[in-house]
C-alpha cells in the first residue's frame, strides 16, 4: 500500500503528508534532475517535525542522523545513482512503448468531451425518442471528436458511470447494513467481468457474421458502458422511493437504452441501405438485424441483473 506508512511503523504524521505517500521514509531525497518522486530531504521533514509538538520532536532528529549516515556512505551514493538511472531508463522505455499496449492517442479522442456534450448525451440516454439524426459526422475521413457531435461515442461517461455505480452500490448496501469494504471490490470485479464478457461475445458474433464495420473495440466498450447511467438512476430511485421507484425508473431506462442501442448500432452494423430505414430482405441483413436486436436486448437484462440485489 503506501510504503511511507510501512516504513514509519504507523506514526500518525505519515498520514498527514498526502502528497508524499509514495516515498519510503528511509530513502533519502533524490536531487537527480530526472527524479520521479518528490524531494523529501531531511530539511522538509524537520520543518514538518517542529509544528507537531513534543511527541514529534524526537522523530526528525532520529530520522536525520540515520539518513545522514546513509548519505555519507559512498557505496550508497553509487547505489542511489544507479537506482535513479535505472528508474530514468525504465521511464523512457515505458514512454516509448506505452503506445503498443494501450493506444493512448486513440484513447484521447474518447475523452475529448465538454460539459455541453455530456449534458446532451445524458439527455439522449434517458430520452432518445425525439432525436432524428444518429449519424456521426466525419471530417477528412476521421470521426469528429465527441465535443462537436453528440452522436460520437465517448469513454468519459461510461468510466464515470461505472465508478459512480460502484459507489452507489456501496451506498445501497450500507443502508441495508450489508456493507463491507471487500464487497465494493467484488461489485467492481463482477461488473467489469460482465462488461468483458459482453464485449467478447459481441466481437465473437461480429466475427461469425462477417460484418465489415468500423466499430472498434473501444467504441463497443463505450456503447456498452452507457447502461451504467440507467443503472445508477434506478438504484438511486430505489433508495429514495423503494421498490416501486426502482422498477419504474429501471423500466424507463431499460426501454431508453434499448432504443438508443438499436438506433446507434443499426448504423454501424447493418448495411447502408438498411440503415436508412428500408428493411432489406436478405439472409445476411436479417442476421445482422437479429444481432443488433440481441445486443440491444442484452442491455436491459444486464441492467436488471446487476442491480436487483441492491434494492430490497
Amino acid at each position, binding site marked *: 500500500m503506501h510504503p511511507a506508512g510501512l516504513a514509519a511503523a504507523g506514526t500518525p504524521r505519515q498520514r498527514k503528508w498526502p502528497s508524499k505517500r509514495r516515498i519510503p521514509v528511509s530513502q533519502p531525497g533524490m536531487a537527480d534532475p530526472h527524479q520521479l518522486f518528490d524531494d523529501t530531504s531531511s530539511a522538509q521533514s524537520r520543518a514538518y517535525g517542529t509544528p507537531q509538538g513534543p511527541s514529534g520532536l524526537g522523530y526528525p532528529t532520529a530520522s536525520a542522523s540515520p539518513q545522514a549516515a546513509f548519505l555519507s556512505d559512498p557505496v550508497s551514493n553509487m547505489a542511489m545513482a544507479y537506482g535513479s538511472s535505472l528508474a530514468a531508463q525504465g521511464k523512457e522505455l515505458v514512454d516509448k512503448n506505452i503506445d503498443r499496449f494501450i493506444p493512448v492517442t486513440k484513447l484521447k479522442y474518447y475523452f475529448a468531451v465538454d460539459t455541453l456534450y455530456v449534458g446532451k448525451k445524458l439527455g439522449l440516454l434517458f430520452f432518445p425518442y425525439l432525436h432524428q439524426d444518429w449519424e456521426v459526422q466525419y471530417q477528412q475521413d476521421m470521426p469528429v471528436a465527441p465535443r462537436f457531435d453528440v452522436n460520437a461515442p465517448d469513454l468519459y461517461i461510461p468510466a464515470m458511470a461505472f465508478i459512480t455505480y460502484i459507489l452507489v452500490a456501496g451506498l445501497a448496501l450500507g443502508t441495508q447494513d450489508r456493507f463491507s469494504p471487500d464487497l465494493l471490490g467484488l461489485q467492481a*470485479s463482477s461488473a467489469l467481468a460482465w462488461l468483458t464478457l459482453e464485449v467478447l461475445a459481441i466481437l465473437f458474433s461480429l466475427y461469425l457474421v462477417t460484418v465489415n464495420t468500423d466499430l472498434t473495440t473501444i467504441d463497443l466498450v463505450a456503447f456498452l458502458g452507457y447502461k451504467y447511467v440507467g443503472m445508477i438512476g434506478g438504484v438511486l430511485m430505489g433508495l429514495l422511493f423503494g421498490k416501486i421507484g426502482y422498477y419504474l425508473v429501471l423500466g424507463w431506462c431499460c426501454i431508453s437504452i434499448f432504443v438508443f442501442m438499436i438506433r446507434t448500432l443499426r448504423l454501424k452494423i447493418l448495411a447502408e441501405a438498411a440503415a436508412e430505414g428500408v428493411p432489406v430482405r436478405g439472409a445476411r441483413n436479417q442476421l445482422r438485424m437479429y444481432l443488433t436486436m440481441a445486443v440491444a436486448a442484452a442491455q436491459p437484462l444486464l441492467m436488471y441483473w446487476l442491480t436487483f440485489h441492491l434494492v430490497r
Partner: protein
Amino acid sequence: MAFTLYSLLQAALLCVNAIAVLHEERFLKNIGWGTDQGIGGFGEEPGIKSQLMNLIRSVRTVMRGKKKN
C-alpha cells in the same frame, strides 16, 4: 454474485482447452467439420459454419506450438 474476472479467465482457459482437444481425424471429420471439407469457393459470404471451422483450426494451430520432428 461471485462472477469475478478470475472466473472469466478460468472459463476462457477451459474453452480454449476444449477447442484444442478436438481431434481432427476421429471427431471433426465424422461430423463434417474437418478442415479439408469446409473451405468452399471464394464466394462472398463464408457463412457461420465455415467461420467456426476456421476459428477452430486457427486455435488448434496456435495452440500446437512448435512442431516436433
